């Protein structure tokens, strides 16, 4: 029996349905898992994605894209293929794509983050739900056992303590993070009573998109909206890495900077980034998360994409699963992605 999803130069392709999932070249029909730039690219003929991500996609790809939105769990039939989208817990509107045809079920995960056992679910996006399937296509961004996230409560405690200490010392707290997803998760998690929160111009429109679909975030301002320079010294500032070293950041005077990313787990990467602090905050699955999620699908066959591909394939094979790899253009290879902290350019949302 032929495969329901195959790799083509354009991207992951469903032959019976004649559509692509997160294609990296222009195609007629694209199903998009989430709005990060390496998964949602411009120029496709038709877009199918979660309804809740419509605002983000139109903001990033153009207001005039041909867009069809689905609620989580809602299904559409296309050329005899049943397509539905299920929460991936990665960013607002992120989905796993479930494809059913001829009695077989394949699920392509895109990027995902399961909620660790006992942890409070993320307020900024619908938590990951495992979907039973025959074949599971999984990411592997943090596919090494060195990646194991600590509970959010502890992590936000560290961030709040850093911010409070800086505010006490009269210097701004510049927290470098990805504009889409990471920034909003930070906003929802920090203690906004410590001081004002300033967001970079790349972050603020995405905050609006989150609020527009009902995600409660604390008050945020652009730097131009803050008249009181003393307030800037107590502020938490969220910005992309590219903003450091620009005149924009100099408006805050003396500041301490930190980077929020799963890559900050490794000390060498923290140090190489040259930031004062590194906070280990990821919107991807850690190693236990990957294994739990894969196990929960019940899939005997697993196809691994972007990240630690050879490692995860071999490990799953040793666990008795049929595991193989797809080459994609998502993210970057695991080693190249390690540079992300420095340039914050490779891939998104790590």
């Amino acid at each position, binding site marked *: 029996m032929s495969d329901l999803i195959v790799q083509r130069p354009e991207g992951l392709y469903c032959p019976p349905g004649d559509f692509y999932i997160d294609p990296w070249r222009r195609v007629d029909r694209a199903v998009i898992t989430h709005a990060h730039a390496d998964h949602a690219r411009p120029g496709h003929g038709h877009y199918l994605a979660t309804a809740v991500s419509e605002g983000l996609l139109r903001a990033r790809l153009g207001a005039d894209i041909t867009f069809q939105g689905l609620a989580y769990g809602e299904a559409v039939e296309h050329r005899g293929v049943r397509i539905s989208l299920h929460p991936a817990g990665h960013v607002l509107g992120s989905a796993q794509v479930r494809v059913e045809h001829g009695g077989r079920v394949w699920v392509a995960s895109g990027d995902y983050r399961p909620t660790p056992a006992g942890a409070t679910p993320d307020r900024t996006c619908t938590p990951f739900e495992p979907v039973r399937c025959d074949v599971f296509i999984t990411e592997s961004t943090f596919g090494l056992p*060195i990646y194991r996230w600590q509970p959010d409560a502890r992590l936000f405690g560290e961030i709040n303590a850093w911010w409070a200490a800086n505010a006490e010392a009269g210097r701004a707290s510049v927290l470098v993070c990805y504009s889409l997803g990471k920034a909003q998760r930070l906003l929802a998690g920090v203690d906004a009573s410590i001081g004002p929160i300033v967001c970079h111009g790349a972050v603020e429109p995405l905050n609006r998109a989150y609020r527009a679909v009902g995600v409660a975030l604390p008050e945020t301002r652009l730097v131009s909206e803050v008249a009181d320079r003393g307030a800037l010294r107590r502020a938490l500032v969220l910005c992309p890495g590219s903003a450091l070293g620009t005149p924009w950041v100099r408006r805050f005077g003396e500041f301490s900077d930190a980077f929020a990313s799963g890559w900050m787990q490794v000390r*060498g990467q923290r140090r190489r980034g040259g930031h004062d602090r590194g906070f280990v905050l990821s919107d991807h699955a850690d190693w236990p998360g990957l294994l739990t999620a894969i196990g929960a699908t019940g899939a005997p066959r697993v196809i691994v994409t972007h990240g630690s591909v050879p490692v995860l394939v071999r*490990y799953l094979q040793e666990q008795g699963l049929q595991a193989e790899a797809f080459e994609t253009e998502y993210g970057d290879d695991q080693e190249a992605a390690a540079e992300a902290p420095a340039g914050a350019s490779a891939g998104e949302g790590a």
Partner: protein
Amino acid sequence: MKRFAELYAALDATTSTAAKVDALVAYLAAAPDEDAAWAVYFLAGGKPRQTVRTALLRAVATEAAGLPDWLFEASYQAVGDLAETIALVLPPPVPAAEPPGLAAWMHERLLPLRGADDATVAHALRAAWRELDTLGRFLLVKLVGGGFRVGVSKLLVQRAVARHAGLDATLVAARMMGYTDGKRLPTAEAWRAVIAPAAIAPAGTDGPAAAMPHEPSQPWPFFLAQPLLEDPAEALGPASDWLAEWKFDGIRGQVVRRAGGVWVWSRGEELMTERFPELQALAAGWPDGTVVDGEIVVWDREAPPLPGADTPGRPAPFARLQQRIGRQALNAKVLADAPVGFVAYDVLELGGVDQRVRPQHERRAALQALAAAVSPRLVVSPLLAGADWPSLAAWRAQSRSLGVEGLMLKHRDSRYGTGRVRRSGDDAPLAWWKWKVEPFTVDGVLIYAQAGHGRRASVYTDYTFAVWNRAPADADEAQAVVEAIAARRPPDPDGLQLVAFTKAYSGLTDEEFRAVDAVIRKTTLEKFGPVRSVRPTMVFELAFEGIARSPRHKSGVALRFPRMLRPRPDKPLHEADTLPALLALLPASRAAPA
């Protein structure tokens, strides 16, 4: 241990020197003496011998984490540090009762593991890992694995200790000399001696006696030279103000003769007395209270004396000293083959009196008087005659052929300072300069790359370079070799090929490393474990200090201190250097070392 882990985290979290000193001072104020003793020991560079073998650490960790070996290895490759890898892959800890302090950890739990059988060590490691968090585990593995390092300099630690104790930093430096020597263990008592109030200076002196080392074994802090990079005539004024000597390629050392004993210290504050019985014999006849600074070298009795020297023989190349240090057992043959000598160039203490405030030329005269009075003969570093810079430059130009590294320039009126400082606050000039000979340079082609360690983990920073076996006829011939390499065709043994000749991993800025790393990823041909072969496209100018024949290397040569000077994007591949050009740099008269 918890407090020490917090200190470590605070030091690791900041690049600000002031913040690091603050964190240290806060720690010292809070920690019990026995813990502070150990913390200062580790932070100032103390390294107790490894108590647990690396292979065992790794095996126990792999098993405790429930990982296959290959997956542990893949994790290690991504992290670039064994202790950190272990700390990260272990399952989450079971919170325990308040763990003991650093000293208790060391004495009760870690040091007893040395020499214990594998099962005992494994049991102790598993128990410790179960109760420690990631940072605690990381530190534990560093401490038992003998690889503890932290981003603070000894000078910074001394500053913090000085502030904590309300003492002068030089006094702390003097008291801390030998504190990190691996043969002793820090104790609360030794720590209290470091921070004890300064003695009142005896009447009639202006203070230096207060800084006298409190133990007979202790050397004075070394005075280090600044590299001279500018034109000396402009930077240093008239040549007649300066005493010029050869810069020897040996080990900087102090020979201390006090209280009937002799101690030999290296600049790294390592006590090396036992390695150099020749120097014990040399100093045994000196009067008590004598400390001499100089260079430890292997002495080549057959070689002609250096210009300016009146003693037979001269220092042998550094490689001979290195071989000698590598020998564990000093039998008669080793001592005969590689006799160690000492070239004295300064006297720091005479008759138990600190000489360091006296001007350089007076200390020099005192040194010569000492040399004339003692037996066996004390070799004094010859002064180079030269009243002007051109004649000194002419001496310097001969350095390479004489087997020295260049010249040392010491101001006639300089006192003997502490560490690497240019000038002191007072009026006395304080200046030692090293005017090294220009390094050799060669243009090499990058052919292999390996990821670095620590902060360079996952970035390709360790490179292997090649030169052509002969000059390519033109760009096309060079290109044909590149295509053959890319097609994995074996090199033509009779034709043009690239021959690996050295590795280098320093000299580029982080930004340059990132740019090279990006090219390496794009031009990778094959991966062999952590090493990648790349399509040869990048030429670098490399510098090195010396070259010797080496049958162990494919190219037949080994370089000393190779490093990258700069990328040469302007240089086409076929204009990279050749092996014959490298061989031409070999010292002509030297036979190949065994």
